[in-house]
């Protein structure tokens, strides 16, 4: 039944989805009309003045100075403020503008809530809201990575090495102009060769930089793996089976732990020895090894569940705290709807 709902679209389903989203919209509208409302973002402006000085090495140094200092530049930054801070500021000075509502950040908050619910909606089945959100996530991620690649890789690691004066004047005022590095021509050449993979005739050219990348990576990984994952891990298994404490007394639990570690490693390795038939002692050790493997997989699954529940809890917290303003564990709004309702209910019960 659920597979049918997950995989097939029908006119009835469309109506069902419209009904669901309308129901959510009505619930949100009801929530918005209760108490202090919901889902608003407040900001305050923080301004700092900076003075610049050029050092002997030609580098520009910016220092924070007092407001109004001659030749200083004032940078204004818009910082988040809480609803509680806004309410306190309004109570002190009605109509103040130091802390104000930010409509663009409020829109961002509502979009984040919509996208969260749209992603959750996939649990009920594929739908247009989920597809739209998925496309937004992919598009934003691709765009973000492109910008990061340009500003974190191409500009500082390549262009700044080959044309430092230009980059200094353009976007990196503290760049050392004597930093011209002709070696950067090699990655530039390899990068251009790699792009030839996109052309049908030049694919063989692109194999050279690929070979370079794979070879370098393999070399780096090989050394570190041998050292940290083979030698050090083998060393960690060379432990006494009968352990003694610092005062020389027998430590039974440490001994049990060490026996389990050494026995577990040997039995698990026995399972992966395929050149010997798994019979007799080797077979029994391999079967014990399977148990150790199963416990390891179970532990990994448990950790994964824990991680996923933590992420789910974080999204619910966003919905309940930042968007719906149902609870206020950080004391940012000074009024929490659920506790106010709970307090009213308990007062009524007490009165009865």
């Amino acid at each position, binding site marked *: 039944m659920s597979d049918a709902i997950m995989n097939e679209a029908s006119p009835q389903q469309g109506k069902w989805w419209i009904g669901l989203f309308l129901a959510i919209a009505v619930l949100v509208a009801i929530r918005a009309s209760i108490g202090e409302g919901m889902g608003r973002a407040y900001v305050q402006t923080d301004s700092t003045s900076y003075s610049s000085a050029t050092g002997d090495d030609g*580098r520009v140094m*910016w220092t924070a100075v007092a407001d109004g200092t001659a030749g200083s530049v004032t940078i204004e930054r818009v910082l988040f403020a809480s609803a509680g801070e806004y309410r306190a500021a309004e109570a002190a000075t009605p109509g103040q503008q130091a802390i104000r509502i930010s409509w663009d950040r409020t829109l961002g908050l509502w979009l984040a809530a919509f996208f969260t619910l749209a992603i959750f909606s996939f649990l009920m089945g594929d739908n247009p809201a989920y597809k739209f959100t998925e496309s937004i996530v992919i598009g934003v991620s691709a765009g973000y990575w492109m910008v990061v690649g340009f500003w974190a890789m191409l500009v500082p690691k390549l262009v700044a090495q080959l044309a430092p004066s230009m980059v200094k004047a353009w976007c990196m005022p*503290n760049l050392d102009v004597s930093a011209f590095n002709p070696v950067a021509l090699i990655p530039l050449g390899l990068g251009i060769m790699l792009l030839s993979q996109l052309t049908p005739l030049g694919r063989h050219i692109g194999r050279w930089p690929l070979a370079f990348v794979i070879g370098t990576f393999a070399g780096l990984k090989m050394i570190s793996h041998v*050292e*940290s994952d083979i030698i050090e891990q083998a060393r960690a298994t060379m432990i006494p089976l009968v352990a003694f404490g610092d005062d020389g007394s027998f430590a039974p639990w440490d001994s049990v732990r060490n026996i389990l570690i050494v026995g577990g490693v040997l039995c698990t390795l026995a399972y992966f020895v395929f050149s010997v038939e798994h019979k007799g002692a080797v077979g029994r050790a391999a079967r014990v090894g399977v148990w150790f493997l199963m416990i390891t997989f179970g532990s990994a699954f448990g950790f994964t569940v824990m*991680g996923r529940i933590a992420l789910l809890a*974080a999204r*619910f917290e966003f919905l309940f705290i930042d968007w719906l303003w149902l609870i206020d564990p950080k004391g940012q709004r000074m009024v929490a709807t659920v506790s106010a309702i709970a307090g009213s209910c308990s007062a009524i019960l007490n009165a009865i």
Partner: protein
Amino acid sequence: MSGTLDRRWIYLGMMLAVALPILWNGVTGKTFPESPTPPSQACFDAIEALPEGSRVLMSFDYDPASEGELSPMATSLMRHLMHKRLKPVVIALWPLGPTKAEETIANVIKGDFPDRVSGKDFVNLGFQTGGEGVLKVIGTDFRKQFPLDRSGTPVDRLPIMEGITKVGDFPLVITISAGYPGGKEWVQYVSSANPGLVLLAGVTGVQASQIYSYYPGQLRGMLAAIKGAAEYEALVSAAIDGDRVTPPLYTEARRRMAPQLFGHLLLIALIIIGNAVYFSQRGRKAVAQ
């Protein structure tokens, strides 16, 4: 049975198991007590053992996708470092790591330790691309990879960076890691190459089972997922707040432990019920045949 149970009931059950404890916590403000496991205690002890003024390299190797698990441990670690008057030098191997670091700095340092000065008591050196390549280089020349801080000031002019030439000059390195590059790469390229260096890792649940094998030899301490974060929060709160009420900023991980409990109970119940149904059906089929 599997043909008649709609899986959406399970989703609904999980939603309630996670959402209701959050609301309960929001109303009552109560959290479950935490007793630290040895890996979390080792993290705490490693920081406690450092003398005042020591510089600590802290790498934010995660992004908003793992914020729910890792931000609480970053917050607690930063609070502990500040309380001990240690000096964090913040870097990131993930492009969105510096943003997470700025958030942590704004919440903890600017909020509760406003007397600390950027460049002298802490610094954010930002992100460098290259993954393990960055770790390999900072092993011998830290400033080659991080020549400027995030605001563009050369590190040569920062008092906090005085005398730091390579990663081995830091007595303690902390990575808060969500995947690649992260905890594993720090062990492979930094811990193994610097035997005297103390490395701590805060990792996501998915990573924890891979990283556990490095503890306690190659990793001095480890915060495993939200549970590790909650334990560490409890340790830091006990050391700093004592009997006073801990500010809500520093109880985030513990607030997420009630949803963990009920989510896990539901999952265990489902596994037991699923197995019971499977074996009873198998038994019935065997009898029928």
